């Protein structure tokens, strides 16, 4: 998974769509993605992904998305982020500071949708 997320880092940094279309240029912090018991964190400065590392920062999760493998597989199928995090229709959930997560929801959605394209 770490290798896959490093490819995600390259993809997010490859063009301006993460920064501009998803407003990640206003995001300095980290995104933690949880896959069952595994967690990985993307450190981000103004929309540029600086590094990917396993686990959670010592300061805790800033913002993130997590769920069981089944939930991620469903998401990889329909690729609909809002559906994936809906309590009635999906099995993923927002993590960390929910106010910051909602403030940066387009960046989270873009990040997770980009992950779908990296198998």
């Amino acid at each position, binding site marked *: 998974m770490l290798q896959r997320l490093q490819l995600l880092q390259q993809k997010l940094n490859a063009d301006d769509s993460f920064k501009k279309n998803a*407003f990640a240029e206003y995001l300095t912090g980290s995104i933690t993605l949880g896959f069952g018991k595994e967690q990985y964190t993307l450190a981000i400065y103004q929309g540029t992904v600086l590094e990917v590392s396993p686990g959670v920062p010592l300061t805790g999760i800033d913002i993130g998305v997590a769920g069981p493998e089944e939930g991620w597989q469903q998401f990889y199928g*329909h690729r*609909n*982020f*809002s*559906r994936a995090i*809906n*309590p*009635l*229709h999906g099995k993923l959930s927002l993590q960390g500071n*929910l*106010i*910051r997560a*909602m*403030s940066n*929801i*387009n960046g989270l*959605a873009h990040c997770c949708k980009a992950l779908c394209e990296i198998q």
Partner: protein
Amino acid sequence: MSITGHYVEVHGTSTYYETNDPAKTQIVCLHTAGRENRQWHGMMACLAGKFQLIALDMPGHGKTYPLKGNRCIDNRDDYAAFIWDFAQALGLPNPIMMGCSLGGNLVLQLAQVYPVKAIVCMQGSDYTPSISPTALAMMTHPYVSMQHSHLDFTESLIGGNPDPGAKDFLMWCVAQSVPVAHQKDLSIYTSFDLRQTMPKITCPVLMIRGEDDWLVSQDLTDGTRSRLMNAAKLVYERLEGVGHFPHVEKPKAISAMVENFLNQL
């Protein structure tokens, strides 16, 4: 065809509505949660000369003023009463009611309480527990811009094959919505539960479902249909490639369904 705007006083609130050219049969049209009556412009054009569509902006939405104290309606009983009294103010004793999403839910409530002639229920359901309390709270949080935080949500609800311009319009309306009005609407939406009283509906019902809509799932639609056991007539139409906003995404196709349904009453 022309679309004209008017104001009428309802419950002390100056209420804005738009209509196409006068026709023998009138249909009162209800917009989706947090939005406004321009959603019906496409169908107004398609049905011009056949039906008069009368589309109101609910309090605090579009050009309708909020309730006193800058409040919006926060429960479904008051919503239904407001819509009914709007129709009465226009001299429509037994109107046809048509709505989508929250509007689609509300026509089910109206048909249980008031003597409507028929209802058209698009992406409506008698039970929609689909928005979390946290998501509702975030809609008016000062650190969260709803104009940003609802972009992905709205885009995710649009079907795979909308008419040209429909997606742009729907996304533009995210920027134009009023957070507190939208929040109250979705609060009503997620607590909406009419399952026990659905047998009260006895008028003819047209249900329309865009099959790309994940929010109002097939299960929710099927459950609602199963509880319409006393409707004088129940017609169910499905559209592939259409999402949560059929009247905006495919107004021509929806208009044909509505015309066919109403002409057979």
